[in-house]
């Protein structure tokens, strides 16, 4: 048993323990925030330092390789970023902040476990752990009715999806006699080809699709985003997506050649994109809009996953990194504007270009990135995804996706219009943007553009990580 392999997880676990202790001490929120940011930075550093660890634990049930470690890096960076936003955690009662950080840490830990898990049971439990942490985090919203109703939605869809996933696991296990991913893939060919196996795997994937918010498992997303505290919504739309992709890449990669599964995924991808984008058009609430756009992005991510080859996985991982950065930037702008933790209406962005040109620019770049317009990281991601898909012969799928990109552009432009064009009904003072936030906005904008123009480094890393798939 090589404990070193678990260093990132242990680091996260100790952070969680620290917050549990803090929760009992009831520190003031400011202090808790500093601890959280420090912990986030530390864990990100630990993950980066341990990125080249390799090995297997628990008889192959837990795999540490470049892919998993890269995902852990992304997750801990995401955690750090979200923690960074918690400086104005107005959506959560101030005496509950330590618990909030505890749950967030635990959730991230669960996601890290997901990234390494090779055994469906571990994956399932880690998934449940992260889901439950998120349910509670959503419910912690101080605006109680909002939090309650969205938490209820999230919870009900979540437990249904988890039940379905469990049943799927049972079917898979029944068909193949294995729960470890390598063993499932190693089952007899006629078993693999059997529709029951495919159905079992499809239902199993349902749980992950729920995390990713792919149609038809997406129904929680709008409500949950809308009702959750802003930081939680950020967490769900960034870190949680990374975890979902991590686990999907893991689970799907041994299954190549399952035609039925691919077909189902194509259908889900198409419907997700279309439903997400069409619904987003009609939204007024910023977070709700982001939720629908997340659903659409889940559809794009599915394109990469369903290619079932290295190019596709590379695309998906690259894209989810892009989404992490882009969504985070959007939410950062939103949180800075809605500094009392309220839900931001899109119309409230009016006059942003004057109140804070920097944030307006960051928002613009992020929105164009989400729409997939070059030279942003979002475009590089889409290019990778679509190249993979066309390589597999899914030209029509790519055309549909591009049509969706155009639809999505409409609502992104509407947001942009609010920020750049509309004048607020009454003159608003310039936004007070703290120095760290300014720095962060600059860093994020630079990251969006640089990774869009010169994606090579990131791409090489991702491709290398994908190569470590068994």
């Amino acid at each position: 048993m090589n404990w070193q392999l678990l260093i990132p997880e242990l680091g996260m676990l100790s952070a969680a323990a620290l917050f549990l202790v803090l929760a009992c001490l009831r520190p003031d929120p400011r202090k808790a925030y500093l601890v959280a940011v420090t912990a986030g930075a530390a864990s990100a550093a630990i993950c980066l330092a341990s990125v080249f660890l390799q090995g297997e634990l628990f008889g192959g049930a837990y795999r540490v390789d470049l892919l998993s470690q890269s995902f852990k890096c992304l997750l801990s960076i995401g955690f750090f970023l979200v923690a960074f936003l918690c400086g104005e955690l107005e959506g959560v009662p101030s005496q509950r902040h330590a618990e909030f950080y505890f749950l967030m840490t635990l959730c991230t830990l669960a996601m890290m476990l997901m990234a390494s898990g090779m055994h469906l049971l571990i994956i399932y439990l880690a998934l449940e752990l992260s889901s439950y942490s998120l349910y509670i985090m959503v419910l912690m919203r101080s605006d109680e009715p909002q939090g309650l109703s969205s938490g209820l939605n999230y919870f009900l869809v979540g437990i249904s999806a988890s039940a379905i996933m469990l049943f799927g696991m049972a079917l898979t296990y029944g068909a193949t006699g294995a729960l470890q991913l390598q063993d499932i893939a190693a089952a007899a060919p006629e078993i693999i080809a059997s529709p029951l196996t495919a159905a079992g795997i499809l239902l199993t994937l349902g749980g992950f699709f729920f995390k990713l918010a792919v149609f038809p498992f997406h129904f929680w997303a709008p409500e949950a985003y809308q009702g959750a505290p802003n930081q939680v919504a950020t967490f769900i739309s960034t870190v949680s997506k990374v975890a979902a992709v991590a686990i999907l890449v893991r689970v799907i990669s041994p299954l190549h050649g399952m035609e039925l599964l691919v077909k189902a995924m194509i259908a889900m991808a198409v419907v997700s994109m279309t439903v997400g984008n069409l619904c987003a058009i009609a939204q007024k609430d910023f977070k709700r809009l982001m939720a629908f756009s997340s659903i659409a992005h889940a559809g794009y991510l599915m394109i990469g996953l369903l290619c079932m080859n290295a190019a596709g996985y590379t695309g998906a991982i690259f894209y989810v990194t892009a989404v992490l950065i882009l969504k985070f930037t959007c939410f950062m702008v939103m949180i800075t504007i809605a500094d009392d933790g309220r839900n931001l209406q899109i119309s409230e962005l009016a006059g942003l270009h004057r109140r804070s040109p920097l944030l307006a620019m960051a928002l613009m770049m992020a929105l164009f990135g989400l729409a997939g317009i070059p030279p942003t990281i979002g475009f590089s991601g889409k290019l990778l995804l679509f190249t993979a898909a066309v390589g597999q012969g899914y030209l029509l799928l790519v055309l549909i996706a591009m049509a969706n990109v155009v639809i999505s552009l409409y609502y992104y432009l509407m947001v942009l219009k609010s920020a750049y064009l509309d004048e607020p009904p009454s003159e608003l003072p310039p936004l007070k943007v703290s120095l760290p936030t300014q720095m962060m906005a600059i860093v994020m904008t630079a990251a969006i553009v640089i990774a869009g123009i010169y994606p090579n480094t990131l791409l090489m890393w991702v491709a290398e990580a994908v190569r470590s798939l068994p």
Partner: protein
Amino acid sequence: MIVPYYHVIILAAMLFALGMFCTLARRNLIMILLGVEIMLNAAALAFVGAALQWQQMEGQAVVLFVLAVAAAEVSVGLALMVSIYRRSGSLDPDVRLTPAGKGAE
């Protein structure tokens, strides 16, 4: 030698369908939760059957954890239901929660 494996699966599927039916059709939050419990139970049954078919203990081990998850689910779920009931006085899933401070107490 007891029964063919697929009989167990079909039984589990029937249970699962019943659970799903309960979840989808009952206009009551607690019954929805109950339906999910039935679904989990069905999955557990399928696991036990599969474990027997493959003569492994892995499947049985899963059931153990399913029980734990079910317990967690019920504790959180019921706490949530009670909160909602306190707030709205109803367990209708279509309930619209009143804004803060105007709870129907």
